[in-house]
């Protein structure tokens, strides 16, 4: 897992691109679907670059939407008031599992 202030993309369903991303917050780990509520496109500008410069917010680098890193709520930008889909997760023996079926549409 990435250190606090950084994020990392994953491709659990082997779709060919990172469809989810994870970040560590002070109180635990969050995993979001890599799918901006504005236009349904990936957020990062480069592999694993999902956060603002200070690592405190999630940014969509398509049209600059800002999201609260803890809740996924869009606080500024074209999809203000909408949220990133936060994905259910389980941590076991140091592994992070998504509590989703491998063919879940959320992983596409």
């Amino acid at each position: 897992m990435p250190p606090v202030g950084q994020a990392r993309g994953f491709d659990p369903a082997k779709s060919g691109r990172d469809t989810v991303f994870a970040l560590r917050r002070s109180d635990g780990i969050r995993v979001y679907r890599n799918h901006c509520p504005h236009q349904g496109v990936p957020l990062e500008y480069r592999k694993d670059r999902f956060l603002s410069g200070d690592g405190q917010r999630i940014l969509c680098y398509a049209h600059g939407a800002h999201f609260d890193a803890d809740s996924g709520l869009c606080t500024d930008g074209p999809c203000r008031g909408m949220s990133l889909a936060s994905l259910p997760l389980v941590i076991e023996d140091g592994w992070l599992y998504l509590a989703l079926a491998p063919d879940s549409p959320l992983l596409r």
Partner: protein
Amino acid sequence: MNIIGPDALVFGVDDVDACSQYLTDYGLTPAGDGRFEALDGTCVVIRAADDPRLPPAIGPAPSIREIVYGVGDAATLEAIAAELSKDREVRRGEGGSVHADDDSGFHLSFALTIRRPYTAPADLTNAPGHPPQRGPNLLGINWDMKVEPRTLSHVVLFVPNMEQAEAFYVSRLGFRLTDKFIGVGPFLRPAGTQDHHTLFLIQTPPFMKGVEHFTFHLGSGTEVLLAGTQFEAKGYTTFWGPGRHYLGSNWFWYFNSPLGCHVEYDADMDLHDDTWEARHRPPGADNSQLFLFTAREKWFPSGPPPKGGAH
């Protein structure tokens, strides 16, 4: 008014290092003090969002802070200053430069152009039925071709009132309307260039005001495909493309960026003069892309041969 086009775009950002890396990987040359230049000297300037040299921001960082237009002569600077001081605050700066806001609130400045002459090769084509442009043994493609952005082409703005924004550029600054997406926005060309557009405006809700994208011209469609492929290989995220636009005929490939807007590679745009009559088209996919490819790593079932390998 002899306005040529955008010479520099100035951004205020929260991650200067990421933006510097991005623009260097895109192909611009770092020229010091946050400046990243194309072959003709047109550039993007990156500054920390709280840099006191920057005009006030429109939205949260990262965002555009100033659009610098290059003009061909000093008389144009005087004409712009006289025209804009009729209804807004105009500040004069070094070398006679003119500084004012447009009708949407973007900070503009106008200065004698910094564009310098340069030469760069054309992409030569062998088309049956037409004399060959590449003779025997001249190769069209090699693995270490270098693509360099040549000149700043255009900037696209989200504006809350595109009719008002268009009227400002056309009736106050002498831009020409080349084409228009009905209900969405105009493609505009200043009098000092024949390029289809150096400015495109898109109607959006007011809180989205800002830059949608900017692009530098490359030498050809082949160069767009090559530069985009290399940029993707460095891990950058495609937003749209590669493809070819219908209005303007330009090749395109758009990427996400840490500058707060998309950044495009573009090439081979139509030229127009004042005899052209603007087309008005609905904004559907048919009129915005003539064709669109999606890059694919795996192009036959057992996977691609090694990149650049002999086979």
